[in-house]
């Protein structure tokens, strides 16, 4: 993905912006005319942590126009005190002047010579724009524990007339490694201010703020003097930069020789080891899987009961008071709108837990190690090691799994993983597996259900190989080069802030599609097309919904389950797999067995499969299970996909899922009927 050919000047509207109580414009940011400060820096240098600390919740995140690169912008409110310039003045000062700054957090970059879409955008916005359109101040976060590497970006930014401030992070880690940094000497060597900050503990923020205010009041300094010939080639230019960096590091740091073996060293001996590393990884994944299913499930049930119980009862009571009780409007409100909103909100505990776990794994530094451990396995299907995490989460629920693809820095990898997640068998499908397997396979039901999970893994691998060999021949060609950050203790404030931002984004995107789809299904089930019942009074089999299902049913005859009551369950399953059994019961006008034995519903389903399969019942049942596994999980997954990969690729994903599901179901039935 390349950067826009005509880079837009900062600030611009970021899609998905929400109003800020501070900004006059409808985006987070200080509004037109306010100074723009851009944060750049290498990955893992604390840039985004600094951004979150400076802006708090006043942030919007969205893709840069024309790219899949995410850019955050926020409002940084700060105060410039009306004080004298002395360092240790204790005179009382007035509140000073409020200065609002638009702060833009660009993606992490090692260099302005781009090798990724993120770096191309950073270059486009800092280098490829006319000098008058660059940010007012560029703050480069530099990792004191890896200073030489961090300063490469500084060397390039200083080659232009630009106000630059270096925010020096990780000084505590540097100290533990026996590295002392003299910020004054370093500042003199670099030709720009250097401020020590610890954004996780909010230290040094005041000094950084003062330095930004001071810089804004001064003209941009001249570019640094460079000792290169006019006809220097790229290697000579790089050598000059590294020479400049080495001089600066020599001048600004002192090695105290007290380097100790750190906790990072000790822990990494196990987490990346050939045998123990994968075992630790599986334990972490099991914990993630358990938490996102077991812990979230009771909360989801409670929310579901809240909406189907007190909320619905309350609405019914209100409607009866105003004379609308028992009308179609009540049906629409309860079974359409409230059911839709309720379904959306039941995902909140699950998504919140998922985002918290992601934030913890990222912030602690473990995710980089997990990527190392799983890299070789995932490489076979064209994905990096980190892609293992979203796929594992998908076995709990596909919705947070799609959101988890954000941990992949490469847009193509995110896209491929987001297309594969729907083939992981989520827990909602499990309820249908159990009902069908118990009804048809008796004491072998457990084996059949287990087999479905194995089939799911085969689908992920098979579709991954297919996509890799067709659309993405070059995906997976990236070598493993991972910078392992030091382990850190995650902070509650940061974790909560990041979780809230992501959750807000999900709710904003998913709410429309989920609520709208549930309402549409209700409307279809309410429209009478046969008999003399009125709107919203018609039995399901006489409704437009049934007609639609009957229209679709012949498509499944080659798969052995072309009976409309079976296919109508699949139509409902397109909305939410959790509703499949209840809708099946509704179409058969029997009691929903819930989690109990199949009962009468099981008997009715057996009759349907026997009739539609022409006597080849078992192959038809297995074909049905395969179709259920592979086709579109639910509209909530589609909503999450739309947010992460856009409408075009979501539509492609739907086509891929339906085609794969139908082809495999037909193959299973047509081959199976030869034997059973």
């Amino acid at each position: 993905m390349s950067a826009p050919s005509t880079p837009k000047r900062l600030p611009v509207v970021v899609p998905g912006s929400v109003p800020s109580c501070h900004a006059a414009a409808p985006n987070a940011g200080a509004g037109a005319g306010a100074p723009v400060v851009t944060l750049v820096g290498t990955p893992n240098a604390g840039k985004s942590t600094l951004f979150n600390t400076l802006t708090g919740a006043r942030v919007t995140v969205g893709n840069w126009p024309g790219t899949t690169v995410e850019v955050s912008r926020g409002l940084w409110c700060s105060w410039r005190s009306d004080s004298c310039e002395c360092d240790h003045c204790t005179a009382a000062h007035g509140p000073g002047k409020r200065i609002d700054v638009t702060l833009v957090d660009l993606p992490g970059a090692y260099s302005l010579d781009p090798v990724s879409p993120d770096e191309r955008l950073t270059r486009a916005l800092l280098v490829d724009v006319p000098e008058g359109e660059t940010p007012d101040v560029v703050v480069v976060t530099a990792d004191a524990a890896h200073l030489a590497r961090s300063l490469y970006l500084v060397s390039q930014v200083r080659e232009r007339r630009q106000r630059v401030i270096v925010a020096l992070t990780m000084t505590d880690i540097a100290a533990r490694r026996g590295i002392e940094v003299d910020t004054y000497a370093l500042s003199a060597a670099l030709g720009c201010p250097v401020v020590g900050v610890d954004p996780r503990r909010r230290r040094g923020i005041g000094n950084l703020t003062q330095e930004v205010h001071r810089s804004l009041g001064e003209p941009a300094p001249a570019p640094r003097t460079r000792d290169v010939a006019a006809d220097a080639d790229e290697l000579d230019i790089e050598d000059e930069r590294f020479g400049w960096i080495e001089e600066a590091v020599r001048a600004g740091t002192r090695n105290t020789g007290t380097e100790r073996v750190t906790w990072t060293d000790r822990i990494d001996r196990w987490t990346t080891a050939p045998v123990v590393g994968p075992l630790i990884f599986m334990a972490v994944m099991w914990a993630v899987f358990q938490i996102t299913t077991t812990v979230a499930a009771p909360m989801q049930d409670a929310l579901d009961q809240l909406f189907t119980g007190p909320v619905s009862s309350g609405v019914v009571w209100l409607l009866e008071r105003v004379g609308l009780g028992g009308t179609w409007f009540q049906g629409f409100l309860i079974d359409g709108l409230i059911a839709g909103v309720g379904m959306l909100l039941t995902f909140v505990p699950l998504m919140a837990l998922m985002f918290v776990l992601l934030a913890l794994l990222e912030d602690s530094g473990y995710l980089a190690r997990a990527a190392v451990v799983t890299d070789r396995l995932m490489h076979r299907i064209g994905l990096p090691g980190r892609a293992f995490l979203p796929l594992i989460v998908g076995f709990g629920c596909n919705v947070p799994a799609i959101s988890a693809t954000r941990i992949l820095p490469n847009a193509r990898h995110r896209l491929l993983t987001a297309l594969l997640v729907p083939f992981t068998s989520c827990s909602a499908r499990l309820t249908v597996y159990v009902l069908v397997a118990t009804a048809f396979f008796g004491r072998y039901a457990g084996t059949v259900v287990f087999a479905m999970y194995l089939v799911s893994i085969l689908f992920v691998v098979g579709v991954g190989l297919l996509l890799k060999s067709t659309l993405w021949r070059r995906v997976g060609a990236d070598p493993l080069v991972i910078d392992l950050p030091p382990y850190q203790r995650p902070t509650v404030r940061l974790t909560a802030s990041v979780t809230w931002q992501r959750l807000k984004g999900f709710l904003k995107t998913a709410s429309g599609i989920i609520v709208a789809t549930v309402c549409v299904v209700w409307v279809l089930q309410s429209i009478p097309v046969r008999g003399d019942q009125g709107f919203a009074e018609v039995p399901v089999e006489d409704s437009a919904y049934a007609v639609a299902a009957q229209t679709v049913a012949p498509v499944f005859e080659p798969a052995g389950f072309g009976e409309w009551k079976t296919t109508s369950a699949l139509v409902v399953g397109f909305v939410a797999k959790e509703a499949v059994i209840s809708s099946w019961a509704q179409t058969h006008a029997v009691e929903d067995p819930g989690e109990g034995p199949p009962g009468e519903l099981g008997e009715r389903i057996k009759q349907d499969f026997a009739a539609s399969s022409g006597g080849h019942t078992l192959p038809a049942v297995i074909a049905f299970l395969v179709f259920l596994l592979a086709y579109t999980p639910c509209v909530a997954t589609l909503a999450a996909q739309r947010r992460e990969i856009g409408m075009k690729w979501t539509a492609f994903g739907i086509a891929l899922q339906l085609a794969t599901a139908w082809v495999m179901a037909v193959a299973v039935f047509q081959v199976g009927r030869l034997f059973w």
Partner: protein
Amino acid sequence: MNTSSLLQAPLQRPLVLVHAEFPADLAKRLGTLGFRRGAQLKALAVTSGGGRIIAVAGARIALDKAVLASMEVEEA
């Protein structure tokens, strides 16, 4: 000069990068991470998949077998 690939060099011994052959993009990325001719390295540990963790310029970088095999080093 007794050189070997970084894949086969002994662990925990100071090494110097003598030569590396990579596509331009990868060479740029490795260069900014500190992998330049004459850079001091140390192979810290073997990872699952046969790669290694390399200490360079104060950082710890995980590299796969193919990348390691393309770097020539000698003991410092």
